[in-house]
Structures are given as structure tokens and as C-alpha cells.
């Protein structure tokens, strides 16, 4: 095998990899969007007073958080057909990403809500605010800056987990590199380029998120240390 870096080959496969990148970004975006809502459901489930629902949600969240995303991916993709449900690889991937990151986000939400001082709730009660006003005007605006760093981390996290989707055949960046590699027997360029593409996307995103945190914190009048 030729070990020299070949620029001509790198440029030849670049369009294919960039096309894969588009799918990777879509997968991360859609998966994250689903996770935001599933996380909300999990959070509400853990805060409800109905003991059975509360307990069950906690156990499910704990289970999903403690087991590998990769194994869950295979579970959803291969087990569903046994029950006559056919998921495409893409749909199975979105469900798994959404569930897995939903459990992480529910923890972020929970922590953020708990970070709002108890006195704020009491003040709302003392002023006889409605529940929606209490949440909408008082609690959530204070919880949001607290939740933001965690939410940002998991956005970058979900993006970095998307290469796993290749293992059930979702066509994204990693899969494109695998395909190129197995057709040409050259792994140096595709895998290195995938790494660089990831760096190019995740570093500025992380930086931008940090900027956003300070902006939001400032707007809320909460100075960051």
C-alpha cells in the first residue's frame, strides 16, 4: 500500500466526503431536535407526583444512560423487525439518538430547574402568579442560562457520535469514508480528512456556544465568573 499522502486522491474524494458531511449534520440536527423533546418528557416524568410513572421514568433513564449508544442502535435496528415493525436505518438512528441524548438533556433540565433558588418559587406563590406565569416569566428565564452550557455540550456530543450510525448502514460522513476506503484500499486520506472535517466543525461550534453562554448570561443580568 502506498503510504504517501496523495493530494489528487484527496481532492477526488472530497466531494463525496462533503456530501456525507451534509448528512452527518442533518443526523445530528434532527437527532438533537428529537432529544430536546424526549428530554422534556423524561424530565416531566421524573417530576410528576404519580409514583409509578415517576419510578418507571427514572429506571428507564438510568438504563439508557448506563448502556452504550452503539448497542442501543443495533437493538432498535434489529429488534423492531422481529415484531413486524420495519425501521429504515435512518429512522432507527434518529430514534436511538433522540432517546439516548434525551436522557442526558433531561438531567440538564433537572439540574437547571433545581439551580433556581427555592425562594423564587415562594416569591411567585406570594405574588399569586399562575403556574404558567411562574414558569414562563420567572423560572425558565433563570434556568435557561444554567442549562445552556450542558445543552451545548450535548449538541457537540451528538455530532461526534454520528459516525456510529455508519455501523447500521446510515450513509453519512464516516460511511462515505468507509466506502472510499474499501473501494480503493486507501485509508490514510479518507480517515484523516474525516477527522479534520470534524475538527473544523466542532471547534468553532464549541467556541460559538461559549460566546452564546456569556451573551445570554449578560442579557439575564447574571454575570459569569
Amino acid at each position: 500500500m502506498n503510504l504517501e499522502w496523495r493530494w489528487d486522491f484527496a481532492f477526488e474524494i472530497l466531494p463525496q466526503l462533503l456530501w456525507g458531511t451534509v448528512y452527518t449534520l442533518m443526523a445530528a440536527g434532527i437527532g438533537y431536535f428529537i432529544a430536546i423533546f424526549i428530554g422534556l418528557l423524561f424530565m416531566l416524568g421524573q417530576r410528576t407526583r404519580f409514583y409509578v410513572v415517576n419510578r418507571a421514568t427514572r429506571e428507564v433513564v438510568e438504563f439508557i444512560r448506563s448502556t452504550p449508544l452503539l448497542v442501543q442502535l443495533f437493538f432498535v435496528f434489529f429488534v423492531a423487525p422481529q415484531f413486524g415493525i420495519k425501521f429504515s436505518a435512518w429512522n432507527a438512528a434518529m430514534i436511538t439518538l433522540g432517546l439516548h441524548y434525551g436522557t442526558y438533556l433531561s438531567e440538564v433540565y433537572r439540574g437547571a430547574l433545581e439551580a433556581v433558588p427555592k425562594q423564587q418559587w415562594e416569591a411567585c406563590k406570594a405574588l399569586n402568579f399562575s403556574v404558567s406565569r411562574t414558569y414562563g416569566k420567572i423560572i425558565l428565564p433563570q434556568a435557561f442560562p444554567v442549562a445552556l452550557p450542558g445543552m451545548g455540550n450535548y449538541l457537540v456530543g451528538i455530532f461526534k457520535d454520528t459516525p456510529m450510525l455508519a455501523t447500521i448502514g446510515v450513509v453519512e460522513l464516516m460511511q462515505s469514508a468507509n466506502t472510499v476506503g474499501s473501494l480503493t484500499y486507501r485509508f490514510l486520506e479518507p480517515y484523516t480528512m474525516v477527522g479534520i472535517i470534524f475538527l473544523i466543525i466542532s471547534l468553532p461550534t464549541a467556541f460559538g456556544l461559549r460566546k452564546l453562554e456569556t451573551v445570554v448570561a449578560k442579557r439575564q443580568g447574571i454575570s459569569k465568573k
Partner: protein
Amino acid sequence: MFNGIGITIAQMLCSTALAIIISLIFGLMRLSSNRLILGIATVYIEFFRGTSLLIQLYWIYYVLPLLINISLEAFYAGFIALGLNFGAYGAEIVRGSIQAVPRQQWEAAKSLNMSPILLMRRIIIPQTFPHLLPPFSNLLVELLKATALVSLISVTDLFFMSKVFNQTYWMSLQVFGTALIIYYILARFFLTPFLRWLEILAARKVGKLIG
């Protein structure tokens, strides 16, 4: 399947050891006032946190051996990639927990004329453990989960074996369900209680939770 569990645990132990060494070295380097040392550590950490673990794994297994002309067994490539990657996350935890030790502790040690090494070893590092362990515990649970990735470079771990069984018997629910449950048991009933015990031990040692 039992062999697979053994390999998963072996991967876990080797990569944890490597990750701890890397965390300490790069975490301390991140606190250096020397620009070069600081720069090297920052680049390392941002690089490994900025790219995906799976890519690093493939790169170390498929590309690196060709570049430097060595043969690297999948098992080694597996835990090296895991250790290097999680070490980068661990380094940030180490840095944060050292910075969380009050500045006055440095001054008190200096006023007793302690050398920088003595100061770190006897005063600062022991005090970092209560700050260090909770995030480190989370990291190790993530690490256990991440060991499943090494199956993709054909390390015969728990997940690799499940895939083999699945192809032979085609009973996905039973096979992958069992794998999930085993991972859950390892995390919830072995790793987490052990880490919790360490946290309590550390808190007691530091004298914050006596009695």
C-alpha cells in the same frame, strides 16, 4: 459471551489506567505558565475532544500502523484510542479541580517555604479528590459504554460476541437485549458503587465528612 465480558473489562481497565496518566500529565500542563507546555496541552485536548472517538479509533488502527510501520493489534489500538480520548476529557477535569483549591492554600504552603513539588503532592493534589471524583465517575461510566466501539475494529468484546451470536441464531431481541442488560449491570452494580465508595473515602480523608 463470557469471554466477551472479560475482554470488555480488560479494555476498561487498560484504558482507564492510560486515561488517568494522560489526565494528570495534560491537566498539570494546562496550568503551566510556560507558553509552549500550555500550548501543547491545549492542542492535544482540543484535538481529541474536537474529533470523534470512532474516527480516532479507526485512524489509530488502520492508518497509524502504516505511517510508522508497526503492527498494532486491535486490542492495543482499542484501549490506546479510548485512553487518549478520555484522557483529554479527564485533563480538563484535573485542571478544573486543581483550580478549585483555594488560592490561600498555595499561599499557606508557600509561607511554610514548601517546594513546588511538595506543595502539589502533599497539599494541592489530595484536596482535589472531592472535586475530581464525581465528574471522573461520570467519565468512567461513559468510558465503559465507549468500550463497545472497539468491537468495530474486531476486538472480541461483549458487543462483538453479541453480533456473532446474532448472525448465528438471528435472535436480536435476546442477544442484544442481554448485551444491554450486562452493560447495565456492569455500570450500575459494579462500577458506580465502586466509584461512590471512592468518593466517600476521599471526602473522609480530606476531613469534610467525618462522623
